[in-house]
């Protein structure tokens, strides 16, 4: 690990000022950042410790939603009575990720910002445009079993590894931040992440020193919620494909559908065309097949991840059957 300066923030405002200094990272749970620092993939000159800031509560807000402090650990969020009762898809997604020990430490904000587990990002002897911009991408002709089939670019085919963020995408979460200039921003999760394009090292729209303080969920959507995750082991493994689904039926027809996907793209994936194709229709195998065709219309495999395309199709269909049964 490279040597760094260390400071403990006493307030969110102080943290953002400290965080705006070049080459500074916030550290909360640290479960991903320290792992990357040990491998010298992340080499910040300064760490600002934020875990003692008062951002650890989950509270109800006007309009029937909830506000989740950025420092709420993943375990506590999954077990929270309100989340369990009204946002089952979020509890289920969190419980499908990592291990008990990691969930006890990892924070809500940190989970959103965790880096890809692409083997070539982790292997410092390999070329990786995300780790070292302009060096190339060894993943595309390498072992890319776990990598993306949607939203890729010539520069990068990494996936976003979070389960939690997939559920939050289906729930239309808003990410609330505090900037080093004191500005508060409310960023819909659909606008938070960036496609890799020519700059795969830039993964989201946060500015220097900008701190995630909360995540807000709107009133729980109508309908049944589920999180279906397909992975290489039954526990403690990242998603090959996952689906966060919320579907409401009315008079035998689909009244609303929210579908977000993990394991397929560089960000929690959501496609309005897929949802629009379902709304107003009666559930059927043919309809679900059409929805899957739409989802995967631009999917592109890179060899060892080709299997994800039929797997995503089957996983989506199974999820829709479960939610409309």
């Amino acid at each position, binding site marked *: 690990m490279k040597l760094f300066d260390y400071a403990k923030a006493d307030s969110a405002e102080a943290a953002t000022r400290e965080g705006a200094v070049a080459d500074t990272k916030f550290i909360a749970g*640290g*479960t991903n950042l320290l792992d990357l620092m040990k491998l010298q993939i992340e080499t910040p000159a300064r760490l600002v*410790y934020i875990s003692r800031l008062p951002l650890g509560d989950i509270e109800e807000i006007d309009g029937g939603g909830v506000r989740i402090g950025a420092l709420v650990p993943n375990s506590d969020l999954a*077990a929270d009575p309100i989340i*369990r009762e009204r946002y089952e898809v979020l*509890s289920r997604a969190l*419980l499908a990720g990592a*291990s008990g*020990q990691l969930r006890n430490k990892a924070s809500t904000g940190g989970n959103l910002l965790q880096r890809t587990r692409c083997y070539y990002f982790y292997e410092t002897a390999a070329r990786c445009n995300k780790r070292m911009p302009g060096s190339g991408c060894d993943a595309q002709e390498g072992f890319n079993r776990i990598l993306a089939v949607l939203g890729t670019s010539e520069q990068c085919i990494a996936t976003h590894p979070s389960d939690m963020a997939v559920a939050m995408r289906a729930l239309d979460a808003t990410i609330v931040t505090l900037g080093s200039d004191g500005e508060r921003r409310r960023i819909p999760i659909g606008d938070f992440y960036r496609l890799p394009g020519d700059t795969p090292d830039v993964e989201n729209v946060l500015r220097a020193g900008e701190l995630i303080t909360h995540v807000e969920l709107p009133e729980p959507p109508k309908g049944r919620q589920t999180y279906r995750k397909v992975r290489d082991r039954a*526990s403690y493994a990242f998603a090959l494909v996952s689906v966060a689904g919320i579907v409401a039926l009315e008079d035998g027809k689909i009244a609303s559908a929210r579908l977000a996907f993990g394991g397929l793209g560089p960000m929690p994936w959501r496609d309005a065309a897929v949802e629009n194709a379902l709304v107003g229709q009666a559930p059927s195998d043919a309809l679900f097949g059409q929805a899957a065709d739409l989802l995967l219309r631009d999917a592109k495999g890179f060899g060892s991840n080709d299997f994800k395309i039929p797997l995503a199709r089957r996983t989506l269909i199974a999820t829709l059957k479960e939610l409309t049964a």
Partner: protein
Amino acid sequence: MHFTINGQPHQAEVDIRTTLLDLLREHLSLTGSKKGCDHGQCGACTVLVNGRRINACLTLAVMHQDDEIVTIEGLGTPEKLHPLQAAFVKHDGFQCGYCTPGQICSAVGMLDEVEKGWPSHVSATLDDPDFTNDEIRERMSGNLCRCSAYPNIVDAIREVADAKQPVQAEAAE
């Protein structure tokens, strides 16, 4: 830096980069917590911080100066084993023993999570799930055992969990 470990105050001068695991093992000679992968994948370093199980390898010592840290050395002694330690011996819940301190610290934290009613990935309902052996396997998936003593580890944890429940049932009556 100042620490509270197994109820005792400790002081150490360490590099800012020192993980909690390296503090315990290399600076305070508390070598019960083991270094397996050093990347949070194996669970051999599991300790309890303010009663919660975490991977000591994935956190900095400096972040835990205000916390209550409990390691395997704080759970029991050779003369007076913690119930989980006794159960691991009785059920042969190990072969080489390297993962065992992490398994036991993890099981202590896990049983506390179960008592709080926390659900898991395999829970049929998120509200008040049944504590089956599948639950034990899922909740302990962050602790690997290369000797694959898993069936006996599950038996050991089961016995301690079952021994706890009648006490709760009596208290409820």
